[in-house]
């Protein structure tokens, strides 16, 4: 007889991401797409209201951003794409159908590389397609118990891109890495703001577990309506444990849709739309097909910026940066641009030597200041020229590191250039030996005890004297120079 061993379970996750595209107008009409915060039903027209007799017209930029996303995700771009009607009766759909893409999406069969715990892995992308977003519903129940819904059509018709992964993710950590990487790419190429909290990026995860070694997929649970990366990660972790517990107790996982209750720290079943999913897709007769020529694809590829992974590699090779530094710098395109933009102000033959210092200032000091102000790199008020100026002031010894930190913060807040701040506030280091020597002499005279301590062999006492001099100079001296000068004075009898 063998002792039953605990079954080892394998987690299988596939992710569907929806992202608003960064267009100025809607997908099929010219209503402005910047509806965020606008009064209800202020950004609508007969087309997006679904009035009878109107005709949709495809937004070229939305198509091109979708193709660019496909290229960034290593997808095939088939020569023919088509729109289809997805029919379902729900009040968030003004026409009774959503214009989407069914069997001929703009992009298919790609991959995105992620890295978790030092392990790289390619996550296959099934497809990237283009559709329109739906209206926003507000559900109301009055104190008297009356229930109704309110419809705001502003969001209806916003270009929405759907990116579907294959079920290649094996843990919540991998799912989080995939989402983070995807968001980085979408922002990098300017396809989307990709901000879950703002609702312009949404994520659904299909989660199932199966005994390791089994090829069959377990019953899948669809996690929906989750509004941040953190919650997606927590919901998947919870869901994996829940499903394993059900199976270990001899139960069966029910295929269903679940949401995340942050207050409970649990996933809970959600009421789904009660009709069966029978969308009766058919080709959208109002929209002629899209013939995507190789020339068009190449033109879009030429407009695509260097992608994050390629740029990271180049920063390592060209500037001799560590992978860690380069990875941090390529978190966002704006950050990498700021770094390289600052370096471009230096003579070409000095850039490699000064890259590490520049990277440190961007990755730690500036990153910290932006973080404290809740600013994204895209909104960083400090430009590359100002950063280069600050680095020059440091390099030539006009200011020391601690002054530079103060100047950086001041420049960020006031918008004045580092040079102007240093001049205005008289922050330049006291380089002149005579001026510093006077202060050193005064400090020695004022602190006979420390002087005696030092001379009797307590070398640590010099630290106190350095501090006193720095205080007298309001931090404007170079501490190393001060230490040398003090030693010189103290060695004289």
């Amino acid at each position, binding site marked *: 007889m063998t002792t039953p061993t605990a079954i080892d379970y394998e987690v299988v996750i596939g992710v569907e991401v929806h992202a608003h595209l960064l*267009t*100025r*107008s809607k997908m099929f009409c*010219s*209503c*402005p*797409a910047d509806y965020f915060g606008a*009064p*209800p*039903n*202020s*950004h*609508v*027209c*007969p087309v997006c*209201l679904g009035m009878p007799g109107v005709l949709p*017209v*495809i*937004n*070229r*930029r*939305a*198509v091109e951003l979708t193709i660019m996303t496909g290229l960034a995700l290593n997808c095939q771009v088939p020569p023919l794409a*088509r729109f289809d009607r997805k*029919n379902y*009766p*729900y*009040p968030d759909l003004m026409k009774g159908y959503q214009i989407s893409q069914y069997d001929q999406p703009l992009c298919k069969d790609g991959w995105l590389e992620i890295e978790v715990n030092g392990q790289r892995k390619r996550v296959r992308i099934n497809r990237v397609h283009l559709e329109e977003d739906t209206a926003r*519903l*507000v*559900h109301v129940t009055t104190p008297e118990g009356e*229930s*109704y*819904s*309110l*419809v*705001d*059509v502003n969001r209806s018709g916003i270009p929405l891109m759907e990116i579907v992964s294959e079920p290649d993710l094996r843990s919540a950590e991998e799912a989080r890495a995939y989402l983070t990487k995807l968001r980085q790419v979408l922002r990098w190429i300017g396809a989307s703001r990709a901000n879950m909290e703002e609702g312009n990026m949404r994520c659904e995860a299909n989660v199932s577990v199966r005994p390791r070694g089994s090829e069959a997929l377990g019953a899948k649970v669809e996690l929906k309506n989750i509004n941040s990366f953190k919650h997606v990660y927590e919901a998947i972790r919870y869901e994996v444990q829940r499903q394993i517990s059900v199976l270990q107790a001899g139960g069966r996982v029910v295929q269903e849709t679940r949401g995340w209750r942050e207050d409970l720290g649990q996933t809970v079943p959600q*009421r789904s739309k*009660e*009709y069966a999913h*029978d969308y*009766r897709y058919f*080709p959208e*007769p109002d*929209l*002629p*097909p*899209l*013939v995507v020529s190789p020339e068009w694809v190449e033109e879009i590829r030429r407009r695509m910026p260097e992608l994050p992974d390629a740029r990271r590699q180049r920063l390592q090779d060209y500037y001799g940066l560590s992978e860690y530094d380069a990875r941090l710098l390529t978190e966002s395109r704006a950050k990498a641009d700021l770094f390289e933009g600052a370096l471009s102000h230096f003579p070409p033959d000095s850039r490699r030597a000064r890259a590490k210092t520049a990277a440190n200032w961007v990755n730690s000091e500036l990153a910290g200041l932006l973080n404290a102000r809740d600013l994204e790199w895209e909104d960083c008020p400090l430009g590359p020229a100002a950063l280069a100026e600050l680095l020059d002031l440091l390099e030539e010894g006009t200011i020391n590191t601690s002054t530079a930190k103060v100047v950086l913060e001041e420049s960020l807040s006031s918008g004045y250039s580092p040079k102007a701040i240093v001049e205005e506030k008289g922050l330049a280091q006291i380089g002149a030996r005579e001026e510093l020597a006077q202060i050193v002499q005064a400090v020695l005279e004022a602190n006979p005890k420390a002087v005696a301590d030092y001379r009797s062999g307590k070398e640590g006492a010099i630290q106190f004297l350095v501090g006193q001099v720095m205080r007298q100079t309001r931090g404007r001296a170079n501490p190393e120079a001060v230490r040398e000068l003090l030693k010189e004075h103290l060695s004289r009898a």
Partner: protein
Amino acid sequence: MPIDRDEVLHIARLARVGLSEEDVHRFQEQLSQILDYFQVLQELDTSEVPPTSHVLPLQNVMRDDEPGASLPSQEVLANAPQREGDFFKVRAVFEE
């Protein structure tokens, strides 16, 4: 090609159409007749004809991404049977 009663009820449900018993009967007959007619079309040899989703020889009809004016709010809501503020008001979506 006979269509059964359940199929008619399913289609009616998807279309959100309420049918009387008499309607179900009538549509069962009519839908069957329509499908029968398609059986005639099916006899044509189309093996050399690519599937046609659109009858007009058009492709790549697109517009530039230029925002234009939207409708004034009063016109948007002019025909709404029910409104609340600037929202359209509709029956509760989730029935308890």
